[in-house]
């Protein structure tokens, strides 16, 4: 995947002038949303035809090449198929437990495009798409961790010590000295206890401030480039009920450090909805007191953005990351309307606690579905091309899974398994696409191999009912509903926080965004 190292490719993608293309894209996304809202609980009120609000420094679409968008789409589908196949691997007995990042793919594509060499991540087990987008995780490595392969060449994140979905990159070389962290995409190693990624995130961010402001640290060029590194954090909405979340946010605010925190909000924590996790059921409302007012030194940049809205996500991550990096102002992105197509993990099925309406809404607003619709609307590709991408993604994931399983089993049987190249060749240092055997030319399925047709083309994806017979009653506390932001009478399409007024240089129409490399 040719994801550019710096910034976005500058190529016109449509014959329309840039600002018209942008307006068309945003407007189309909004119209699509209002036309297909399925149920009364989540419908957009009639007559909401006004143009949605675009962020003040929106990335014009002509800065992102069609190839890059389709590469993102392919990666997102590979990640989704890795989740789907991974769950089947567990349920058919080849792995002990599985927890996956399905439903969060598109937002992580955007986050990855804002991540620069030298940056750090402190996240949790839904971040597989992000890691893959950076080239810091291959599909084979993903499955190797699912199988708990103890070989550190095949399972570089934890050598089989952590369960699947616990991502990490290599900071140290063989003698324990630091690599040049400024040239790599860095991720601190994940832990399972949710919320526990937050305290160390405080330090990962604060270190940038120290590198920038403490003179004696100036010469440590392998550790920092003038403190320009952002510490990206990720956390789920329900883990924001943990005390250490609030303590960490508060600490970062006091320390005025370059943290960019993304909250992946899919409305639930396993079976428990936001109403029981967070006062008012709304993290943006609760966090609003941390928001930085214009001209204030302390406080956070804060945005709310829909997790299925690819262009909006791209724009907001670019804009906010630039501010965080330059000014050492922390930021929180509340990414809402995410879904979890397979439920929390292999330990359960979300049909047991989600209403029919909720499941239908999740199907409709699945971020991959919405990205596909957007691609078609702006004319980046034809349906057949997207179908092919989806099928190829599925086939490739199956290939990589089989390869990982084969190597793991061969090693168990003492048959030598796959040769283990030295670390440098394996793409664990964060080079995009480095060392991934699955990416070798010719890895695509041979012509004539039938791949199952995946639902798409505007069709509603069938719900997966894993248990036959009568649906089990919803769990306590009874007939709850998750209130979508659209209930408040605004168009669902672009639920962004209003652009900050009177920002110097804030463009009202898309032009070349400042600061992008």
């Amino acid at each position, binding site marked *: 995947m040719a994801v550019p190292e710096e910034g976005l490719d500058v190529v016109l993608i449509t014959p329309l002038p840039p600002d018209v293309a942008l307006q068309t894209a945003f407007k189309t996304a909004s119209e699509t949303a209002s036309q297909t809202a399925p149920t009364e609980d989540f419908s957009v009120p009639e007559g909401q035809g006004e143009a949605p609000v675009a962020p003040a420094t929106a990335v014009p679409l002509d800065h992102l090449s069609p190839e890059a968008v389709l590469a993102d789409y392919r990666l997102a589908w590979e990640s989704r198929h890795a989740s789907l196949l991974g769950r089947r691997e567990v349920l058919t007995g080849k792995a002990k437990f599985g927890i996956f990042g399905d439903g969060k793919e598109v937002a992580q594509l955007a986050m990855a495009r804002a991540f620069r060499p030298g940056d*750090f991540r*402190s996240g949790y087990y839904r971040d597989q798409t992000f890691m893959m987008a950076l080239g810091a995780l291959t599909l084979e490595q993903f499955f190797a961790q699912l199988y708990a392969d103890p070989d*550190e060449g095949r399972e*570089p*994140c*934890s*050598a089989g*010590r*952590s369960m699947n979905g*616990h991502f*990490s*990159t*290599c*900071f*140290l070389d063989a003698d*324990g000295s*630091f690599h040049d*962290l400024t040239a790599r995409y860095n991720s*601190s*190693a994940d*832990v*399972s*206890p949710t919320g*526990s990624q*937050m*305290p*160390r*995130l*405080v*330090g*990962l*961010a*604060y*270190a940038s*401030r*120290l590198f920038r*402001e*403490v003179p*004696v*640290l100036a010469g*440590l060029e*392998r*550790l*920092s480039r003038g403190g320009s590194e952002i*510490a990206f954090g990720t956390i789920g909405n329900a883990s924001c009920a943990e*005390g*250490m979340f609030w*303590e*960490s946010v*508060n*600490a970062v605010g*006091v*320390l005025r450090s370059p943290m960019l925190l993304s909250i992946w909000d899919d409305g639930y924590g396993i079976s428990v909805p936001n109403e029981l996790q967070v006062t008012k059921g709304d993290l943006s409302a609760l966090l609003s007191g941390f928001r930085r007012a214009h001209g204030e030194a302390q406080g956070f940049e804060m945005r709310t953005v829909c997790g299925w809205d690819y262009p909006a996500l791209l724009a907001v991550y670019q804009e906010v990351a630039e501010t965080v990096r330059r000014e050492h102002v922390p930021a929180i992105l509340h990414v809402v309307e995410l879904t979890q197509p397979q439920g929390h993990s292999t330990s359960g099925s979300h049909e047991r606690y989600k209403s029919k309406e909720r499941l239908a809404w999740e199907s409709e607003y699945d971020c991959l579905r919405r990205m596909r619709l957007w691609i078609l609307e702006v004319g980046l590709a034809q349906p057949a091309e997207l179908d092919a991408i989806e099928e190829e993604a599925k086939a490739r994931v199956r290939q990589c899974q089989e390869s990982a399983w084969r190597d793991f089993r061969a090693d168990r049987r003492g048959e030598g398994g796959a040769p283990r190249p030295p670390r440098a060749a394996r793409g664990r240092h964060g080079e995009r696409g480095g060392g991934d055997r699955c990416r070798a030319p010719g890895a695509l399925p041979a012509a004539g191999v039938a791949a199952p047709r995946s639902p798409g083309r505007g069709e509603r994806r069938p719900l997966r009912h894993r248990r036959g017979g009568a649906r089990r009653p919803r769990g306590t506390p009874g007939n709850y509903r998750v209130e979508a932001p659209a209930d408040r009478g605004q168009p669902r399409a672009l639920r962004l926080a209003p652009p900050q007024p009177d920002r110097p240089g804030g463009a009202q129409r898309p032009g070349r965004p400042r600061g992008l490399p």
Partner: protein
Amino acid sequence: MGEDLGQLGDVNQGFAGLQAKYGPLRVSDTGIREVTILGQAIGMAMRGLRPIAEIQYLDYLLYALQIASDDLATVRYRTKGQQKAPVILRTRGHRLEGIWHSGSPMAGILNLVRGIYVCVPRNMTQAAGFYNTLLHGDDPALVIEVLNGYRVKERLPANIGELTVPLGVPEVLRAGSDVTVVTYGALCRIAAEAAELLSQVGIEIELIDVQTLLPFDLSGRIVRSLQKTNRVLFLDEDVPGGATAYMLQQVLEVQNGFQWLDSPPRTLSGKAHRPAYGSDGDYFSKPNREEIFEAVYELMHESDPAGYPLFFR
């Protein structure tokens, strides 16, 4: 960094003048947030800095114990050596006053932080040696200074900034041939006082300071003492079955010290309750000089009832 550590220089003035010297970013005040005091240090250390994070009193370490156990203690393990976090987590304790300020929950701590060194220096000279050693190294450590030690004067070594104390090496504070007394921290001084009393009735204890609980006595120094005395008393301020049980298991089972015993192995610990604030409660909640005397004397009585009659019962 820590609470009241920046401007004031910490509650015992250990950092007095250092913020003025090094600036508010290198010697800093934090809010009351133990979880993120430690978390901040972990993130900084992962990026190559060398933080010393202070928990104001040992008892407050409980706030941060989850992050210490789930995160800091597992950094090298869960990455198979690809990441490290050399945090020095500094605190002071054992005996301030009262229920939440006099704890020595050593077993509670050390059992949760396998993967972090636990240093229990008996005085400030040893503490300095540990700090120097740890700053040469690459691994996280908890250093628990003896709070009462701030009221005791010590001779200041000329090389206080250079001297190092190795980890996992106990020190024999007093030679003796009758009973090996194994302890650490604040009780070293109290046991030394008890040793004087015992000497007056003809009992000579060999007093050993373990110095670090993790790692513990890497070369089997305590067993060599046991070979000489054949009697052992494990002594600390933790609750019964706490770190005394840990030390006992290390010496008798892991190092096979059982075979040199002529008497039952004994532990003497604090009581199974939090120390009371009132002075009588404080005295009786933890081992005191008289109790140590009696425990050792009873061991000698068991081996020679006529030679050591129980005159205090």
